[in-house]
């Protein structure tokens, strides 16, 4: 379920030249964050299953030719991890630039302007322009739901909404159709959201969405602020009660 399932056996590793001990089964991301080492993420969310889709948490692991997703890689004894290098920084910038180029992210008129994880990430990674040609796809806004709105123009396909709907609410109204740049979030059998029979209108998907893709209806530019604190509490309470 969560990223930090541990079996209790103590191991030691190095992250950014810092000697760290953790319990086996913990992911690099979890251990890094416990030790105040920042690794950027977009699709990861505490309390949801690991997706490993955004690739922003890629880290270098000594001995491995490939970069590893910190959220999905379990720590091993003697591991030597680098979380910030010029190469990683360049790749992360490139990933976020491609997210911007892929759909229509017009921050200035977005309801999430000023409260958007994608926007914050661009600032954090010092992105001042996008080097790739914008695709400007023609995408729809699904405003059929009574309380919420899905704007595919702003979606980065992190699937947090899909996971929270399936894993926490248990409705599994949302899913992903298509592949690559044609992939899109759908409701039930690719119906308008308002016609979904499984949606409970709980609003969790809106609050976990990192961008202005899922918002409350009736919000104007810059007004949408997400509340994500509920998720760790919710999962903790359920674990305690079960």
């Amino acid at each position, binding site marked *: 379920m969560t990223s930090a399932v541990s079996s209790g056996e103590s191991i030691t590793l190095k992250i950014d030249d810092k000697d760290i001990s953790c319990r086996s089964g913990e992911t690099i991301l979890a251990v890094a964050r416990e030790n105040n080492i920042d690794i950027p993420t977009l699709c990861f969310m505490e309390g949801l299953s690991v997706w490993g889709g955004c690739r922003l948490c890629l880290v270098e692991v000594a001995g491995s030719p490939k970069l590893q997703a910190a959220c999905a890689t379990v720590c091993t004894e003697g591991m030597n991890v680098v979380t910030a290098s010029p190469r990683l920084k360049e790749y992360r910038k490139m990933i976020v630039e491609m997210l911007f180029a892929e759909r229509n992210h017009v921050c*200035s*008129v977005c*309801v999430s302007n000023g409260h958007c994880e994608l926007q914050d990430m661009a600032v954090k990674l010092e992105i001042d322009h996008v080097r790739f040609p914008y695709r400007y796809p023609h995408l729809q806004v699904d*405003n*059929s739901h009574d309380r919420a709105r899905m704007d595919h123009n702003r979606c980065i396909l992190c699937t947090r909404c899909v996971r929270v709907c399936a894993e926490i609410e248990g409705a599994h109204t949302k899913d992903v159709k298509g592949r690559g740049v044609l992939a899109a979030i759908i409701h039930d059998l690719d119906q308008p959201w308002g016609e979904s029979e499984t949606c409970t209108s709980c609003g969790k998907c809106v609050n976990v969405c990192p961008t202005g893709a899922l918002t409350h209806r*009736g*919000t*104007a*530019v810059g007004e949408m602020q997400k509340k994500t604190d509920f998720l760790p509490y919710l999962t903790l309470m359920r674990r305690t009660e079960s």
Partner: protein
Amino acid sequence: MPQTITIDGVTRIEGHAKITIQLDDAGKVYDAQFHVTQFRGFEKFVQGRPLTEMPGIMARICGICPVSHLMAAAKACDDILAVQIPPTAEKLRRIMNLAQMIQSHALSFFHLSSPDLLFGMDGDPKQRNIFGLIRDHPDFARDGIMLRKFGQDIIAKLGGKKIHPAWVVPGGVNAPLTEEVQDSILKEVPAAIERIDRALDYFHQIEGRYPAEEDAFANFPTLFAGLVTADGLLEHYHGPLKFVDQDASLVAELSPADQRHYGSLIGEAVEKYSYLKFPYFKPRGYPDGIYRVGPLARLIVAERCGTRRADMELGAFRTRLGRSPQSSFHYHWARLIEILYGIEMIQRLLQFPDILNTHIRARARPNRLEGVGVSEAPRGTLIHHYKIDDNGLIQWANLIIATGHNNLAMNRGVRQVAERFVDGNKLQEGMLNRVEAVIRCFDPCLSCSTHALGQMPLRIELCKADGEVCDVLQRD
């Protein structure tokens, strides 16, 4: 041989424009046109966007007067939501709208037009700009800059930022006024009134120096249109839309509720040579239905301003020029009177007992599928008209911008100036400047960036009928 002069690079009517002047065999002007050569496409690309985003998107039409578009868009959305916004929200919107008008008028008059008036239409272009103004008339320039700051600061204090504040939303505004902000604005009012008084005194000394320009700067009878209050006073936010003739006699009136049917009075013609539409007063047909909007039109349409000092100045204006002066040269004076009115009115609105009320937003879902918002932008009447689908997504939008209303008059004005001042085959800088200056009277958003530094980069070509360039006058 017939020739055409092209002024290509009249920078900024929210972009690009050019002027062509056609000369006959004898070198006399027989026609002139003002072309807006760019296409913005706002009416198209808002299609499919949620209604509640409209004020934010539409504000992006302009960086000088985003607040005007915020107002008209929010009013169109209010109409679709079918809500009556809380009285405090209306007052707060009015304050921001007036602040916008003050800063835009100050920019137009002090930064852009006053160099012509202070240095003369034929003055040295090296001096005839804002820098020359700062050097030779520092107090006057400072007053202009500080008046603009007064307006911009109010917008920032209310909306969080000077340009494109997201504070005006369908149903009202999204944050109440605080006592601190109220006090800080009121504290600035006396200084602002002093500045505009000084500017008016100065203007009175120079405005009589330009009889030829008064006579030829779009000086012809037209209709005038603008909002008024229910009592017929000057109005910028909400009220009946009046059309009057050259004698200020009422021709037609649309009550706020009837403004949804603005199409019954306003038609929109299209000409091949310009992307800017040509609105006209429908009952008189095209192009006889020519009308003007903006500060001069508002002062002609209104019986009086409704604030003490502005009414005194309006009295002086009417004593000197009559009840309805037809020359667009007088837009300048009208602009200064409106600045004075704006400052007084902001002070009055801030002193209402309910201005700090925190009930500032009416919430509703769309209750109509169509809505119209009419307000007064600094340059004149602004109309936003939207249609939505059942889910609240925009299906269709029509915008009639103030500059558009004046399009017929600007074209005719350019022709009048050209006829008066352009003759023969040798181009003179003063002629070029007068062609610009008549456009500047209307302040049609031509005057944004480059022009803010004193002059537009202009290139006038004098061509033979076969296209051969026989004379070029270039100003960078």
